[in-house]
């Protein structure tokens, strides 16, 4: 017994609470279970572990690079600041978790339990009405991180096992329910493309599919529009982040001034030109983001591979919920740029609002929510409500992202480490879930899970005859709709 206990203790101290080895161990175990050869298991272990270590270097760098700017803002204006971006959010969540002395390994366990929860909900779809399995690995990592911090913030005394089980159930339910909401909009956009969206703005997509046609006319589509060519540079993450960060941090650091920066940042050399210091500081964010993405990509590709395998083996007929960018091919390329542009207008306006109204927190636009959420919204909006909807909706989304993100970063204190998740659902849905958990505690968690589970039931009851057909056989769905509308199949209106 004693030996067993000390073995467990060794495992707990060296693997379970060390996220890098824990991830490596999971990949190793997964591959071993899949019957892969020993050297493939070993390679998986190394990639998982090294991937996480790379991520660790990058999130440390990201937070560290931000620290002098945060200190300067605090010193001069009593302000805190946060970049609303899932990578910054993940780094800030990790820093918050570790700051109170808890192990970030829990993030990985939350992810696995939540994924299992999603599988169970699909397995029992006869009762749950859940059709989708969320398999976007990097997003699962980011959301597990932020949600882990939310739960630790709301339940500071809760022990690790309870934390991961409770959050696993909550997050898994969100993944299943929210991605399930995108089945109809995505199937209609892609004419039965065979997938749903499993990303960071799923409630947003559902909302857009409901309101876009009320805002504009699809006949006035943005396909005839000529957009300026320079916008194409934003196709590349590194460039886009570099530009955005230089604009924002350039402005902030210029206002703080060289004297203050010399005092608080040892990295600012005595002979260095202020302009080049700003440029270096700003571009450093692009450096750490690129490294962070490399780390995530390295260990997540191991995970996603097995998720995909599971979904095909275990759950035939279920719809994979994947990255939102998979929908872009079905919208006009202009829609993507247009959404990004109007989202940026909305965000910039809201940020100015924060400054004018003396908000205690300053929000800095991150590339991922700005681009991926708003581009996605524009693709869906353009199909149903044309150019008007594709402009107004991303614009409003930009405002919501800043206000919701600002509230969350301030209230849930990740602003202390300079970040918040920042994607639409995490600005518009999760802050509410956080506040409910904080005030109603366990009753709040139970209420949120029950409300979420009720959503697919309601939608099912509204379209009983087509609910499963639309996901499984789009041609048959069109036939049913044509019969309902009393027109031949080629004239059927799907909106």
């Amino acid at each position, binding site marked *: 017994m004693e030996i067993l206990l000390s073995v467990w203790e060794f495992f707990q101290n060296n693997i379970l609470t060390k996220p890098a080895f824990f991830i490596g161990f999971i990949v190793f175990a997964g591959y071993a279970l899949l019957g892969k050869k020993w050297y493939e298991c070993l390679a998986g272990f190394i990639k998982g572990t090294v991937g996480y270590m790379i991520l660790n270097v990058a999130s440390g760098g990201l937070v560290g690079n931000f620290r002098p700017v945060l200190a300067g803002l605090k010193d001069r204006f009593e302000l805190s600041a946060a970049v609303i971006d899932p990578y910054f959010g993940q780094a800030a969540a990790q820093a918050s978790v570790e700051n109170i002395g808890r192990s970030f390994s829990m993030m990985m366990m939350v992810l696995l339990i939540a994924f299992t929860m999603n599988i169970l909900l699909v397995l029992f779809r006869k009762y749950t009405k859940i059709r989708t399995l969320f398999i976007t690995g990097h997003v699962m990592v980011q959301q597990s991180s932020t949600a882990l911090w939310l739960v630790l913030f709301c339940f500071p005394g809760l022990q690790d096992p309870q934390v991961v089980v409770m959050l696993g159930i909550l997050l898994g339910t969100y993944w299943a329910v929210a991605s399930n909401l995108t089945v109809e909009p995505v199937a209609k956009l892609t004419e039965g493309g065979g997938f749903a969206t499993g990303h960071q703005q799923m409630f947003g997509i559902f909302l857009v599919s409901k309101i876009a046609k009320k805002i504009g006319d699809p006949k006035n589509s943005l396909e005839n529009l000529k957009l300026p060519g320079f916008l194409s540079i934003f196709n590349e993450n590194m460039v886009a982040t570099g530009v955005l960060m230089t604009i924002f941090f350039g402005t902030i650091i210029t206002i703080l001034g060289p004297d203050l920066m010399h005092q608080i940042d040892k990295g600012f050399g005595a002979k260095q030109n202020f302009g080049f210091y700003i440029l270096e500081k700003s571009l450093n964010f692009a450096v750490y983001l690129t490294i962070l993405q490399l780390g995530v990509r390295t260990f997540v590709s191991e995970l996603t591979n097995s998720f995909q395998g599971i979904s095909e083996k275990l759950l035939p007929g279920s719809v994979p919920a994947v990255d939102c960018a998979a929908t872009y091919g079905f919208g006009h390329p202009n829609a993507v740029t247009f959404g990004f542009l109007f989202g940026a207008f909305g965000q910039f306006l809201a940020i100015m609002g924060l400054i004018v109204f003396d908000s205690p927190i300053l929000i800095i636009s991150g590339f991922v929510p700005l*681009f991926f959420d708003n581009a996605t919204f524009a693709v869906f909006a353009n199909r149903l409500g044309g150019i008007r909807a594709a402009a107004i909706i991303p614009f409003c989304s930009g405002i919501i992202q800043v206000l919701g993100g600002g509230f969350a970063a301030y209230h849930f204190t990740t602003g202390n480490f300079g970040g918040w998740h920042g994607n639409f659902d995490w600005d518009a849905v999760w802050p509410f879930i956080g506040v409910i958990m904080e005030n109603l505690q366990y009753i709040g968690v139970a209420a949120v899970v029950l409300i979420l589970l009720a959503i697919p039931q309601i939608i099912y009851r509204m379209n009983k005859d087509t609910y499963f057909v639309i996901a499984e056989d789009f041609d048959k769905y069109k036939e049913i709709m044509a019969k309902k509308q009393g027109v031949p199949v080629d004239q059927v209106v799907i909106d």
Partner: protein
Amino acid sequence: MAASEDKGECINMLKVIAACGSGMGSSQIIKMKLEKVFKKLGYQAEIYHTNVGDAKSQANNYDVVFCSESLVGTFNGTRATVIGLKNLLSEAEMTEKIEAANLPK
């Protein structure tokens, strides 16, 4: 020893790279679907996935680049065959386009 058995004496290993904006989600999906499709079509293929910037700088080391249709323009001037996809998850579309591109087996 086991390793060489696995790969066999392959004459032509197709080097493939899948690319998307951030190199995280979509390119991974393309990669997973491609693995199945190439196998079905009888190709030996090594498939990697990454972001567009990275893929652009390495494209000449690969035989084929797969990306979303809207990103095809990024790869102007590379020696590799560039294949743009509309539906990143459609095995039918991939099969059709691979066959049309007449890649060496």
